[in-house]
């Protein structure tokens, strides 16, 4: 250990003669570890974020949306607005498919909301059943939830999201107050717990929830719902249940074999698949960039080591004369080259770490530290140093004391 430290100290003295070159040589390793750590941390962050979003949306959730994307001609996509899902569909799913745990049909539309002189032009108003909170993981922070009775009697009551509450009431407690939704006065019976943004980035705290029947009769005057949330009994039940729902709805909607569905069933894997794909691409590109950086770094270190070996011919000759074996010389120079690369790598790891913190902050991702990413980055920097040192240290063993000592 003492020997290693002494050798390293001597090496550092020699490196001091090539400060700029050494710095440039380590730059490649720096960027290599930098990108590995950034990519590693970010993909872990994204995986965690996706997991959180899915849990946030609801456990074992299947979403049935009315209508589907139809194309009229090759380049004119058009989203059908057909509202053909009914409460009957929801009841049929709940009653005939045993893999169903809970069903929450829901309608929504944006309405102006007023309290006193404060008018909010378009707030999403959701008609929901008592099961909605359970299925979609919405919790109430204060007040009471919407009950069966509220729904059956079409009571004009509302649950208010945190953001909407702040806009209308500021610091005041909204529970018990009355607001005007569109032209219907509704009493606020509860405030929702904070939920944050959904997968698409919409603020889920800026909306109102009223009983579904109130919504259908008093607001939109129709029997159709926009969406049916179905909670499966388990994660494994999701895929078969999807198929059962599709089959059931095709029968109920009298869709013939050759016709397309007039509804769409999605589960959350699809929702997050695109994001994962994008991140996968970034990861691959990041790793390619890292590999290229390590290659450049190794070449840089190779050239600096050749310089160093030439500069220290006398030192090598003397070391050989006082009894160092070839393998001692090889070990010494391999340690030096890996020391150079690992120092660059350490700085790159630290910078990459800070960078991934910054990116996570900007994107509002959870901060994760990829232990594997750090380990791989460290190993790669050490390896590139060792590989770069092989040829120069072999050259060093070719230096013989006899060549160094004066020839007379």
């Amino acid at each position, binding site marked *: 250990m003492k020997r290693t430290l*002494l050798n390293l100290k001597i090496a550092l*003295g020699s490196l001091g003669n090539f400060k700029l070159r050494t710095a440039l040589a380590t730059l490649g390793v720096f960027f290599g570890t930098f990108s590995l750590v950034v990519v590693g941390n970010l993909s872990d962050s994204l995986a965690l974020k996706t997991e959180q979003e899915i849990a946030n949306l609801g456990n074992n959730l299947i979403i049935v949306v009315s209508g589907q994307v139809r194309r009229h001609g090759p380049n004119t996509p058009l989203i059908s607005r057909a509202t053909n899902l009914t409460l009957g569909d929801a009841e049929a799913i709940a009653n005939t498919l045993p893999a169903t745990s809970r069903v929450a049909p829901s309608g929504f539309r944006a309405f102006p909301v007023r309290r006193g002189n404060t008018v909010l032009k378009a707030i999403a108003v959701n008609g929901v059943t008592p099961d909605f909170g359970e299925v979609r993981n919405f919790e109430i922070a204060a007040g009471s939830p919407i009950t069966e009775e509220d729904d059956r009697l079409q009571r004009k009551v509302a649950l208010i999201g945190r953001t909407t509450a702040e806009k209308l009431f500021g610091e005041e407690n909204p529970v018990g107050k009355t607001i005007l939704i569109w032209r219907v006065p509704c009493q606020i019976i509860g405030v929702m717990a904070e939920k944050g943004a959904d997968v698409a980035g919409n603020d889920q705290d800026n909306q109102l929830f009223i009983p579904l029947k109130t919504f259908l009769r008093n607001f939109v005057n129709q029997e159709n719902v926009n969406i049916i949330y179905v909670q499966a009994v388990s994660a494994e039940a999701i895929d078969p249940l999807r198929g059962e729902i599709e089959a059931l709805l095709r029968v109920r909607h009298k869709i013939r074999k050759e016709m397309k569905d007039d509804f769409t069933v999605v589960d959350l894997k699809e929702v997050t698949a695109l994001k994962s794909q994008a991140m996968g691409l970034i990861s691959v590109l990041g790793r390619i960039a890292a590999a290229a950086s390590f290659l450049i770094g190794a070449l840089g270190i190779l050239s600096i080591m050749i310089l160093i070996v030439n500069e220290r011919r006398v*030192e090598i*000759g003397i070391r*050989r004369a006082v*009894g160092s*074996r070839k393998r001692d010389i090889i070990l010494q120079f391999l340690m030096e080259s890996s020391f150079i690369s690992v120092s660059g790598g350490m700085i790159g790891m630290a910078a990459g770490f800070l960078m991934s913190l910054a990116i996570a902050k900007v994107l509002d991702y959870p901060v994760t530290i990829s232990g594997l990413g750090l380990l791989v980055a460290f190993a790669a920097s050490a390896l590139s140093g060792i590989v770069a040192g092989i040829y120069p240290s072999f050259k060093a063993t070719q230096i013989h004391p006899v060549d160094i000592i*004066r*020839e007379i």
Partner: protein
Amino acid sequence: MTPLCRMEDVRKTFRMGDDAVEVLKGIDLEIVHGEFAAIMGTSGSGKSTLMNLIGCLDVPTSGRYLLAGREVLGLKDDDLSVLRNAHIGFVFQNFYLLPYATVLENVLLPTLYRENAMDGARERAVELLRLIGLEARMRFRPNRLSGGEQQRVAICRALMNDPELLLADEPTGQLDSKTAAEIMNLLAKMNERGKTVIVVTHDPAIAACAKRIIRIKDGVIVDEQAG
């Protein structure tokens, strides 16, 4: 008592392209423990080649060379390293201290390559530096020392592993005559303490310090005399 060095009909041939040049043409030589010998010769006489062979930096083309009873011919490179490390201390004309290491670290250099780690190496190195009066400068870089001081540090380095043989190649070549005398005195002192000392030189005044002078010319020993 077996001699420290024993050479029998040692020859050394160098290849230069197609030509083979025989530099040493049959050397018979014995150096016993405790000797203070000078190898004298002019430029091109073969004295440096002889020194390289004695110091196990090179191996003979033919003949026998026993160092401390061990046959050197046929030894592998690594074995020669180990042999040098344990038995020989080198002193060079150009001192050859490592510029990026301190005086103390330079003296410690041979201990880095010992087969068995030395206990109290640092204390021994400091003690050697005290002996030559440079203890106060052990944390200096060599370039802050005078030539004579650097050569004294180099002698400490040569003594560090306590070898039987001190091999000095023109140790005073870079020094003025007063400093040269000091260095020769130091070598004589080491000889009095039991070290075998061999000095290679072309300078008769330096050779005169030795107790035995071996003259070499055109690759053969031409004359031996007591100094």
